């Protein structure tokens, strides 16, 4: 693992230690976030799959009604019957916060005078199959909306999980080892300097002691000479 390119000083060491601490803490929190996101995501994905299958079935049903209706009626009449809708749909988009992911919540309101009469055409020229097709379609409308909300949530969560997982991995396999390596390097370097200093001091002391001894021997020699001179003559 490559270490960071820094000066091996005590100040850098302290700041690196601080950064390592933050990285470890962040790694732990991101890991927790990832696990929780994953848990929710799997639940949602399962539900999404269920709703999707249900909607597929229901829509197939609606389409088969339409096919029969368009077989019974001429296409001009059918187009004319559906030309101007009686019911309007508008949706409110709310916000839901799932582990700091902003997920839209759909809430729909229909603008119609009478809920039982949604058919935008007179009954004289149209067939009964068209009625049931429209009725079915408006009945499955809530599940269509639910599908939309679920699917969007699943997509958004998947993107967020991928992002979080990358961050966790980057911290775990790149940042933290790098910090540890660098801290170790700086510590070794500082220790080495310390030892170098110690030996230098010892060496200097040795030299000084040597010098002192030599001086002492010299002094003694002089003293002995003097003593001999005074007492032997």
């Amino acid at each position, binding site marked *: 693992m490559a270490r960071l390119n820094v000066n091996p000083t005590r100040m850098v060491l302290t700041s690196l230690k601080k950064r390592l601490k933050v990285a470890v803490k962040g790694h732990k929190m991101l890991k927790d976030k990832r696990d929780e996101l994953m848990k929710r*995501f799997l639940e949602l994905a399962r539900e999404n*799959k269920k709703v999707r299958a249900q909607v*597929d079935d229901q829509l197939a049903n609606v389409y088969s009604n339409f096919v029969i209706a368009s077989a019974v009626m001429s296409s001009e009449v059918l187009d004319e019957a559906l030309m101007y809708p009686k019911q309007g749909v508008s949706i409110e988009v709310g916000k839901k916060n799932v582990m700091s992911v902003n997920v839209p919540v759909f809430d729909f309101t229909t603008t119609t005078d009478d809920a039982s009469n949604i058919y935008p055409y007179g009954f004289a020229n149209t067939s009964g199959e068209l009625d049931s097709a429209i009725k079915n379609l408006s009945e499955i409308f809530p599940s269509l909306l639910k599908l939309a909300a679920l699917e969007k949530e699943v*997509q958004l969560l*998947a993107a967020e999980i*991928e992002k979080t997982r990358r961050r966790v991995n980057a911290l775990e396999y790149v940042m933290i080892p790098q910090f540890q390596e660098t801290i170790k390097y700086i510590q070794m370097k500082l220790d080495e300097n310390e030892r170098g200093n110690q030996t230098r001091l010892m060496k200097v002391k040795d030299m000084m002691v040597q010098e002192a001894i030599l001086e002492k021997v010299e002094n003694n020699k002089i003293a002995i000479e003097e003593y001999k001179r005074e007492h032997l003559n």
Partner: protein
Amino acid sequence: MYRIGVIGDKQSVKGFKAVGLDVFDCLNSDEAKKTLRKIAKEDYAIIYVTENMCKDIMDVINEYNSVRLPAIIPIPGMDGSIGIGSSRIKKAVEKAVGADII
């Protein structure tokens, strides 16, 4: 206030008009792509696209995966489901988990 749009071939989508959705019928996927790009900028919160149109414009649809709105949702068309909807769930799971476990 947001609206809901439906993009697809004429046969499949004309029923949705009756229940109050905004219908955009397209002849081919090029037209669908243009329409999708246009209405995604407007105030549509949900855009349903029939699967037979979807399959050629997946690249455009995937661009909107990571934004909050609009939600672009494939629905089966007149000729039945060709599995794009469920494969999208599968892909999302693979993206998140790393393996298809659903």
